[in-house]
């Protein structure tokens, strides 16, 4: 008998069905991947299983008995544990308190040796032997926070573990630890639902894979019976063709010059030259400094120092206003926090940087703004009908397109800086975003992006700069390098 079964579940929001008659059955000792593009219904499925949404039709069955899961607390009592896509650590609490936060079984007087010991064991399992239980969560890197969340899940004594894209912010070593923990869970007879955008992970860790597309269950397959191409085809409903746009690289004159950039404590003495009309990729893992460098160039880091110039004109660091005046545009790695205005509509997000162009006597010209919003939506490929929907209803991929749309237009091409532009973005939207990036190049922009996804780096870069612990390891032109080389550079460079 399956441990957890989803039986003909349909969920509608207004007239839109986001899950249509989806059925899944999960056995003990099984790791099941759930794949699909953004908007395919994966998150909704998780929310139905964890009691945040009630299904309109169908039922969730635990051990063969249909149950109505009323709240996340109820799901916990039924033995379902979740690592959500959003970080869920309270920064002011210690690692220990965060691990037990929200656990229904913690007694009122919770300072107990037994709880400490169990938290310690969970952390050790994930290779965090050096992490003290009393460290405040705010002192941890994003990657470590994610691991603490997984430790929290391990302490929940659940039978079904759900992980919603747990590896997006992790380095390879950390990912390997999570996989080891999952294998251990599997050996103990637990079941795992593993939601991911990374197809490699599906074949590495999962026994079977269920694919969702537009709310329909396309099918469930054993991973040893299909290959990558078939899986992609199931997800997209068509074959992928070329993910990365083909183009002729035509490097122009150097546009962005950085000399001796210091961003304490990580980056010390970093130099960079990037040319007009090209994509330069800073390849590096979490903690490599790639993201830090671009944030500093965007004027976001108060402690940055060094020399930077745009087309020969010196640019002052440490202020966003100066950076923007020098035509430096930035797309943040933290989409929800810094990328877009979640509470505003799609249209308002698109015109956020255009208000000045449509102001007469201090008043906004609504008609012009509406037209601009519509044309920008068309340019980035967001449905015009959604202009009035709140941005937080969009998928990650569509939200990222809004962040791009904001920078389209203006008379002079500038420098476009991007951190992890496709983090949390599905395969289909990814291809569109790559095309958008190329369009910026064609308009004469100098694009610099930081990425930890090597496949993406190789697919997009005219110039690759590999980074490790705050400094450049090597610099390659397109075609001069391959996956193994970059991987070696960003994990254990020979010269380090």
């Amino acid at each position, binding site marked *: 008998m399956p441990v957890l079964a989803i039986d003909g579940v349909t969920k509608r929001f207004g007239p839109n069905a986001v899950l249509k008659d989806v059925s899944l059955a999960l056995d003990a000792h099984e790791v099941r991947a759930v794949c699909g593009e953004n908007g395919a219904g994966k998150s909704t499925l998780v929310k139905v299983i964890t009691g945040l949404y009630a299904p309109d039709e169908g039922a969730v069955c635990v051990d063969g008995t249909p149950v109505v899961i009323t709240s996340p607390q109820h799901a916990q009592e039924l033995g379902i544990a979740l690592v959500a896509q*959003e970080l869920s650590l*309270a920064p*002011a609490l210690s690692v220990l308190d965060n691990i037990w936060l929200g656990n229904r079984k913690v*007694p009122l007087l919770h300072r107990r040796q037994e709880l400490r010991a169990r938290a310690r064991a969970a952390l050790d399992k994930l290779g965090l032997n050096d992490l003290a239980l009393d460290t405040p969560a705010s002192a941890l890197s994003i990657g470590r926070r994610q691991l603490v969340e997984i430790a929290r899940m391990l302490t929940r004594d659940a039978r079904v573990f759900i992980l919603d894209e747990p590896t997006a912010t992790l380095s390879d070593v950390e990912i390997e630890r999570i996989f080891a923990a999952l294998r251990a869970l599997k050996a103990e007879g637990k079941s795992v639902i593993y939601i991911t955008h990374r197809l490699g992970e599906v074949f590495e860790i999962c026994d079977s894979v269920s694919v969702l597309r537009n709310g329909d269950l396309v099918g469930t397959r054993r991973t040893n019976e299909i290959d990558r191409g078939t899986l992609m085809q199931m997800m997209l409903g068509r074959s992928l063709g070329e993910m990365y746009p083909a183009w002729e690289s035509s490097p122009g004159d150097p546009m962005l010059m950085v000399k001796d950039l210091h961003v304490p404590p990580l980056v010390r003495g970093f130099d960079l030259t990037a040319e007009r009309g090209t994509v330069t990729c800073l390849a590096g893992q979490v903690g490599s400094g790639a993201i830090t460098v671009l944030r500093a160039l965007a004027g976001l880091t*108060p402690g940055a120092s060094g020399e930077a110039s745009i087309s020969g004109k010196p640019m002052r660091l440490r202020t966003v206003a100066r950076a923007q005046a020098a035509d430096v545009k930035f797309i943040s790695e933290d989409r929800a926090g810094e990328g877009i205005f979640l509470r505003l509509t799609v249209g308002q997000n698109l015109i956020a940087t255009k208000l000045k162009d449509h102001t007469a006597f201090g008043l906004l010209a609504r008609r012009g703004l509406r037209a601009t919003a519509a044309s920008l939506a068309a340019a980035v490929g967001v449905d015009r009908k959604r202009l009035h929907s709140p941005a937080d209803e969009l998928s990650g991929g569509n939200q990222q397109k809004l962040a791009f749309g904001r920078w389209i237009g203006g008379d002079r091409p500038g420098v476009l800086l991007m951190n992890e532009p496709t983090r949390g973005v599905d395969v289909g939207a990814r291809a569109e975003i790559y095309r958008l990036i190329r369009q910026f190049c064609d308009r004469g922009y100098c694009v610099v992006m930081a990425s930890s996804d090597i496949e993406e780096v190789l697919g997009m870069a005219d110039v690759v700069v590999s980074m490790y612990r705050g400094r450049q390891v090597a610099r390659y032109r397109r075609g001069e390098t391959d996956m193994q080389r970059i991987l070696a550079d960003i994990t254990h460079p020979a010269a380090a």
Partner: protein
Amino acid sequence: MTFGNAVQRLFAPSARPFTIVVGTIIVLGLFDRGTGYFFSIGTVFSVMQLFATLGLVALGLGLSMLIREFDLSVSGMVGLAGCIAVLTGASNPWLGAALGVAAGLLGGLIQGLIMTRLNLSSVGVTLGGLLTMQGLTYVLTDNQTISYPKIAVPLGLNAPLAGLFSLRSVVALAVFAIAALAMRYTRLGRDVIATGSDRRASRIAGLNTDRVVISVFAASGGSSALAGVLLSYSLGAASPVALSDVLAPAAAAAIVGGVSVIGGRGSPMGIAAGVLTLCILSSGLSAIGVAPYVHDLVTGAILLVIAILDAPDLAQRITTWQFDRAERQRNALKGASS
């Protein structure tokens, strides 16, 4: 440990309230220069009397600030509970006290329910609560001062214990002790900090944050109501206009006490230290002969300094600024020599 390190430790957020209270005593003591007006049992007693009222209000407000809300209704609660206690406790003071505190708990509970059920901000809801309670107090008292017939109650509440305390201030200290223990050693305390630190994250982790919010507002109402009850009983009278201006000092005390206005940081003991600082300033400045109308200026200046110390990346900004200045000077020198 170097000197700089020691200073940094003394002004770390968790230690700062205690540093400030000790610093205040030392500074006032230096001004006093052994005249004995400041270092006297009388001053300590009057500080503790002030503490009894302001402390419980600041505790309630501070708890709401810990979860990143703001309970503006505390000052309304003080007046309302005081009047209820005097009106209903004429024959039995315990009954009056119980009803007064119950009104506070209920008021907080209702406001918490409105906020969580309708997903509203506390500022709007508790501002409504504040005005409603003040209005209710006027109606209940017919806009008159009502005297309390049992003269034994004020005498008993204010009688000095060991010269330094009164029953009133002992009750306030006991409430602080209970709050401190609950925050430090129980799951509830952890849940309050978690909710203030990141409410969305706490909810995803499985915490019922609505319940935490409602509990905190009930506790805040109950604590300020107790302050009102004790005050009316010790004055032997309730007036609708008494203590309507307790809100700003209570907020100041909570902030001096290390409660972060963005939530998730602070402790009852810190709040106690913040309240003590304000009370000592008020009594101590009077004792050394500073006119009362200057007190606000001193308190305000201290608050501003604390606000500045809390600036994000303050140390980094200072370093950068020094760096920039050095560079400008170098450039100026270069310009002069060439």
